[in-house]
């Protein structure tokens, strides 16, 4: 399957992809990270793990285990209340607020509730990351249309989210998350509202991006999705604590195998 980046999108994203990809380093490092909201108890405790650049990870765990809180830390919507957290090799737990947008632009997020801007068309929602990074309109039109076509929404480009089905909104959200070719993709239940065929297509998109060097983290309850992704690693949370009996997440191998490169 030909990905949009293999056409015009690759050219449009040349600016944002100017960063040289590191192949063997850690893209995420948590060192005894804890998180509490207000004066409540800790929802995440002593998280201590490293995610290798270019890896494919599934985040699993029962409801209330802290998956959403961990994702918020990862896409920089929340700071840890203790511990060290680094992304892209930079310590960000105490980074100045003004520095965060630059890191967020390197992360693509698919929210479980989509978080599309209701009064913007599907086209404008998908174009947002490119426009925020200063791409000219001539560099936006082609890639966005290509991406919408790829997620099967070419004829819904001018539709606004309230007029789209849940599955269509989810596909718009996915297109928006990947349009700027981020280094790290974080997806919260990305196949929760789509049929089996589209779920397969979305998974294929994520694995294809992973093969191009993008690190992917998918929070899911879908065991079928996990089973269909050979080579992916599991991050399991229970009661805010990382379940890592083998220590593989604390001490990952130097160069991670990408999905599809090794058997299930």
């Amino acid at each position, binding site marked *: 399957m030909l990905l949009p980046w293999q056409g015009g999108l690759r050219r449009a994203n040349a600016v944002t992809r100017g960063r040289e990809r590191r192949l063997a380093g850690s893209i995420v490092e948590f060192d005894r990270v804890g998180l509490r909201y207000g004066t409540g108890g800790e929802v995440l405790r002593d998280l201590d793990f490293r995610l290798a650049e270019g890896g494919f990870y599934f985040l699993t765990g029962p409801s209330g285990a802290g998956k959403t809180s961990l994702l918020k830390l990862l896409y920089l919507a929340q700071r840890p209340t203790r511990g060290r957290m680094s992304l892209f090799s930079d310590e960000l737990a105490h980074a100045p607020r003004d520095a965060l*947008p630059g890191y*967020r632009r390197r992360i693509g997020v698919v929210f479980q509730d989509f978080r599309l801007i209701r009064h913007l068309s599907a086209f404008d929602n998908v174009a947002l990351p490119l426009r925020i990074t200063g791409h000219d309109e001539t560099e936006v039109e082609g890639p966005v249309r290509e991406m919408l076509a790829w997620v099967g929404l070419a004829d819904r480009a001018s539709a606004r989210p309230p007029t789209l089905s849940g599955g269509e909104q989810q596909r718009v959200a996915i297109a928006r998350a990947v349009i700027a070719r981020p280094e790290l993709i974080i997806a919260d239940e990305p196949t929760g509202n789509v049929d089996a065929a589209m779920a397969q297509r979305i998974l294929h998109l994520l694995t294809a991006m992973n093969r191009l060097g993008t690190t992917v983290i998918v929070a899911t309850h879908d065991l079928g999705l996990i089973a269909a992704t050979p080579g992916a690693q599991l991050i399991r949370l229970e009661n805010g604590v990382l379940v890592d009996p083998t220590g593989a997440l604390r001490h990952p191998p130097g160069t991670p195998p990408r999905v599809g490169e090794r058997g299930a």
Partner: protein
Amino acid sequence: MKLHSVSEADRRLIPSSGIKGPVPLLIAIMTFVMVVVAAAGLALGNTASVVKQGVENRFSIQISDGSAKTSAAIAAARSAPGVSRVEQVPPEDLRRTLERWLGPAGAEADLPLPVIIDVDLAPGADVPAVARRIEQAVAGARFVAHRASLAPLLDALRGLTMLAFGLVLLIAMASAAAVVLAARGALDTHRATIEVMHGIGATDEQVATLFLRQIAIDALIGGIAGAATAGLILAAIIGGASFATSLAGGPPLGWGDAAVLVALPLAVALLATMVARGALLRALRERL
């Protein structure tokens, strides 16, 4: 999305409320009051200047005990260096003035009147020397500066002028406070959009710029509407008030004053935009 310009795509992000929102109306009312008060302040200031200039070199010789000394007083005044004009105020004029104050009794012929002689001095004249010469030539004559008798009026005019400018500042501050409230309200209204934009890497400057465009347009539309209304009303008042022109010795507002009044709505729009920018950035910094 450029940092300091707003494209068509950016405009779609924060839909315009057009001129239906409360901010343009609020700014229009504030600007209207501000222009009227500023015009009043400028007119009062101009009147004070004209009155002051008019009396700056004008004096009177007052002789309370009859007209026998009038000729001597006039002669003494004319011979003093620096005197440019000497003219007795006709007794009929004095009686007419008294009649206004006292009624028909003021016009009775047996009412004793002082002699009053107007004296204009050239700029730079030695006032004490002129006074000495007149008072030595005519016993009981008093040489009185008009500005001394008008000092309370001039003080009042200056005070009112300062009060007007103080009120303009207060109204500007009230306008700024209203714009801050409106800006914070707009942030709350578009909270979801802002969260998405922050989430995908928009900076505070980029977010604030989207709102500033609308605030600047609202402030400009409201400011121009308020100032235009005030201008029409002021033109009607000034055009129909001949007493104002005669009191001030000319139109109470000049072209320079008009330029100041025209600049006010632009200044209001600029102030509103700057204040809103600060308020927006402070509010955005409260979020991660």
